[in-house]
């Protein structure tokens, strides 16, 4: 395995250990700084007037009553804000993709319930909320497309420029590639799976404060984001400014999970409106808006097929996938969907594959990124494998053993069009997780329970995922490291942490790279006027990317320290070893501490900067989730019993952080499998816009999660692989397979998510129970 050339020169002390987080002190005592904590002199507050109809024409907007309310300062409509858009595109895709529409405010027609129609500016939030009720909008309601599955054959068009409501389709190897294999197969599994809409639902909603300085035209933005530098670049393009004129700050962001990866329509509105008001402008989304209008994810279906030989060997696989993109997806949704087809074969020896994907508009909230955006590949594959195993009369574990890739079979080609799988351990994590469960003992317990009229089940999901992509935009991460004459070290990176512990991470990495103690390192993040470019928290990249940035910058800094010490110590730089907090000459007593060298350099100390660029196209992480459950066959209630994750994210920087990411993602996946449902009625009205209707998992539903770690290094910095998204990928299939296994005596087959109590009772009733 290729190791990075930038490994620290001394044995690592902190990397790999469970060091306490530096973020925790402020967050535990109420001294964090989230966007809603920002106060500016004379700050004004914004609130959106939103459409109550899924589809309607806007005949007229009368803001006179709202404007007459004391404390209201302005009401803006599309005519005021939209013409000010200079350019509107996201850096990761560039300006040339065939993007979907994304107007700041709705023009002429509203396209989902919650579509922003007007923006009220007032002296405080209470008055702004009063005033939105006074904005009279004359709507002419139209029939809406509430379900994307009806959209391709509907006469109604969500956007007139997109025939059949299709934003785009992509395909991999054509179906002919697998036809022979299916024709000669001993067994074929062929099912259509449907996954309901659910969403990231960060505990902190979206929010932004924008302050425009009339004297010099500078714009300062405080926002809840995963990507400060993208907010700056996007904001500069939107407003027609040089990026240097835009400064973005964020200290604490209360969860993102994809929802805060790029600015959305409301953010655009606040940026545009900020230049029309005399003070800073704040918008804080409320929960109802968040559940109604921030966006949806996961809503998709696919016909999944696999051809098997008589012994269960997989001969070919295929998926025809379609996804709901709502009315205004962010960003362009078509390209990302390819990953569903590319990853459908998963960590199995699948020689042939075919796939297609279609992105379909509907009159619902726009699709956006969510942790493991392609996870439907695992849902479809792993549910199909369990169904196939039952039909073949094989234990699902045995069917997987016959087909799963092991470490020593890598690299192995992906038949759908991805680079080969490599540096991972699918079969090894599978066996590890099954050992932790004691699979055979569970099967015995299950049989005994069934005899006693109780229904237990076990389900697994094994997946492989590309992390820390080498795609040009996301490959880049810069760092600056400074040593002050006091000896204190400061590491400056973009950050973009939304709970993923990037402050602790870079301090650990920097302390090791320079051989200093943790408490002698500070970090500055999330102020674009001070930090070098970094692509932020996305695509499970931050661990690897910041490790690369710190390693390369520390390497430059060590050379600089040697150079400076060389002049004072009178020896050549190459004879000096820089490690453990000092520059020394081996075999002599000659040495200088970092503080002494920094003092020599001048009052500003010594500083280095460098940029890391990921070289591998992707780093493969993998895991197996194993879940056991009991299903009450009268009420349909599912109780999770044990939950085990055997995973390989390479060498861990901080096992607490990795396990925290796994657990958080897993519980989001459990929510998606059993509870969370962003449901609409047939007219396109959202029915789950409060936490009474949109059910998040709580302490009473989640099991204790057990972890088994394997560490196959990847060809990237420190061998570290991404850990942020996998939990949310592996959990839904493992949970659904466990429920289906529990109900297998009834002949129940689960192909629709979520497995809510009502859905399970309906399936049992249908099966004659």
């Amino acid at each position, binding site marked *: 395995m290729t190791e990075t050339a930038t490994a620290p020169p001394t044995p690592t002390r902190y990397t790999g250990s*469970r060091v*306490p*987080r530096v*973020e*925790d*002190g*402020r*967050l*535990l*005592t*109420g*001294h*964090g*700084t*989230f966007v*809603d*904590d920002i106060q500016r002199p004379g700050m004004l507050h914004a609130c959106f007037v939103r459409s109550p109809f899924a589809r309607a024409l806007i005949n007229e907007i009368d803001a006179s009553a709202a404007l007459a309310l004391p404390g209201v300062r302005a009401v803006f409509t599309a005519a005021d804000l939209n013409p000010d858009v200079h350019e509107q595109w996201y850096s990761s895709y560039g300006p040339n993709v065939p993007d979907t529409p994304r107007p700041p405010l709705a023009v002429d027609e509203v396209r989902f319930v919650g579509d922003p129609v007007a923006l009220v500016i007032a002296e405080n939030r*209470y008055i702004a909320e009063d005033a939105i009720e006074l904005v009279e909008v004359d709507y002419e309601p139209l029939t809406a497309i509430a379900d994307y599955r009806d959209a391709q054959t509907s006469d109604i068009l969500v956007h007139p420029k997109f025939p059949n409501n299709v934003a785009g389709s992509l395909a991999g190897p054509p179906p002919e590639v697998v036809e022979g294999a299916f024709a000669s197969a001993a067994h074929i599994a062929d099912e259509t799976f449907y996954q309901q809409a659910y969403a*990231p*639902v*960060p*505990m*902190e*909603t979206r929010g932004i404060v924008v302050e425009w300085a009339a004297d010099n035209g500078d714009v300062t933005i405080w926002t809840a984001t995963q990507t400060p530098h993208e907010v700056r670049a996007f904001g500069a393009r939107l407003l027609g400014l040089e990026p240097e004129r835009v400064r973005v700050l964020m200290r*604490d*962001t*209360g*969860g993102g*999970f994809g929802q805060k990866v790029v600015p959305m329509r409301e953010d655009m509105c606040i940026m545009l409106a900020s230049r029309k008001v005399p003070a800073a402008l704040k918008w804080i989304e*409320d*929960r109802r808006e968040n559940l109604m209008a921030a966006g949806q994810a996961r809503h998709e279906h696919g016909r999944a097929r696999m051809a098997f030989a008589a012994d269960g060997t997989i001969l070919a696989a295929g998926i025809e996938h379609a996804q709901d993109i709502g009315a205004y997806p962010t960003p362009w949704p078509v390209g990302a969907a390819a990953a569903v087809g590319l990853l459908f074969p998963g960590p199995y020896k699948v020689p042939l594959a075919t796939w297609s994907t279609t992105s379909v508009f509907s009159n619902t909230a726009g699709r956006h990124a969510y942790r493991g955006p392609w996870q439907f590949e695992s849902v479809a594959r792993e549910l199909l494998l369990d169904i196939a195993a039952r039909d073949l009369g094989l234990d699902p574990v045995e069917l997987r053993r016959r087909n799963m890739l092991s470490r020593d079979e890598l690299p192995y080609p992906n038949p759908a069009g991805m680079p080969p799988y490599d540096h991972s351990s699918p079969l090894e994590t599978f066996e590890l997780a099954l050992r932790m469960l004691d699979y055979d003992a569970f099967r015995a317990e299950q049989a005994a329970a069934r005899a006693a009229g109780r229904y237990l089940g076990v389900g697994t999901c094994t997946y492989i995922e590309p992390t820390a992509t080498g795609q040009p935009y996301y490959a880049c991460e810069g760092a600056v490291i400074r040593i002050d004459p006091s000896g204190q070290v400061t590491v400056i990176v973009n950050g973009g942490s*939304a*709970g*993923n*512990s990037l402050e602790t991470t870079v301090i650990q990495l920097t302390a090791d790279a320079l051989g200093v103690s943790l408490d002698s390192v500070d970090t500055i993040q999330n102020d674009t006027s001070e930090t070098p470019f970094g692509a932020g928290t996305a695509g499970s990249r931050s661990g690897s990317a910041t490790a690369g940035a710190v390693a390369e910058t520390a390497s430059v800094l060590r050379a600089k320290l040697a150079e400076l010490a060389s002049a004072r110590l009178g020896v050549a730089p190459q004879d000096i070893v820089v490690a453990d907090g000092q520059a020394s000459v081996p075999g002599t007593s000659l040495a200088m501490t970092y503080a002494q060298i920094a003092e020599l350099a001048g009052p500003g100390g010594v500083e280095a900067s460098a940029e890391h660029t990921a070289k591998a196209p992707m780093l493969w992480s993998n895991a197996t989730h194993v879940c056991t459950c009991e299903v009450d066959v009268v009420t349909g209630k599912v109780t999770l019993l044990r939950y085990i994750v055997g995973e390989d994210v390479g060498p861990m920087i901080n096992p*607490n*952080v990795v*396990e*925290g990411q*796994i*657990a*958080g*993602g*897993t*519980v*989001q996946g459990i929510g998606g499998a059993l509870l969370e449902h962003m449901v609409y009625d047939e007219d396109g009205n959202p029915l789950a816009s*409060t*936490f*009474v209707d949109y059910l*998040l*998992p*709580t*302490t*009473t539903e*989640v099991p*204790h*999660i057990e972890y088994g770690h394997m560490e196959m290094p990847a060809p990237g910095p420190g061998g570290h692989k991404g850990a942020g998204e996998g*939990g949310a990928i592996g959990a839904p299939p493992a949970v659904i397979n466990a429920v289906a296994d529990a109900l297998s005596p009834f002949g129940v087959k689960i192909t629709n998510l979520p497995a809510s109590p009502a859905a399970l009772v309906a399936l049992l009733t249908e099966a004659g129970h």
Partner: protein
Amino acid sequence: MAELPVRLTVNGETVERTAEPRMTLADFLRERCGLTGTHLGCEHGACGACTLLVDGAAVRSCLMFAVQADGLDVTTVEGIAAPDGTLSRVQAAMRDCHGLQCGFCTPGFVMSITALLRDNPKPTDEEIREGLSGNFCRCTGYQGIIAAVHRAAETVEKA
């Protein structure tokens, strides 16, 4: 709308301000008292992020008006650590057990756990889960939080 005087004790200090009758206690603390540690996650009493102590009882401050707290004793997350900054047992256990990630729900959990352990110093796992089921966390999967309550209970026992 006319403002009414509100006089209450916040973290041991007497506070006198005014508030519209419709102003929530959470907004009053955040905007009139400069105490932004109390967070609003839903504003409809479901998520528990805004939990604080009113006369010792754990209360959702998004569901209470500031004027209702007139004359009462309020403790927010800013009042939990010792004056010298030493974390409380609950706060220290949350740090030690990786009980927080983004930190947005954390103040509500710190307050709920503090009240829970005061009323039930040796809770079972089931009692902990039941007691915290009104606080949502989207980052941790609750693993570190539940471990932290056990840890804090053990610490109390030893002390």
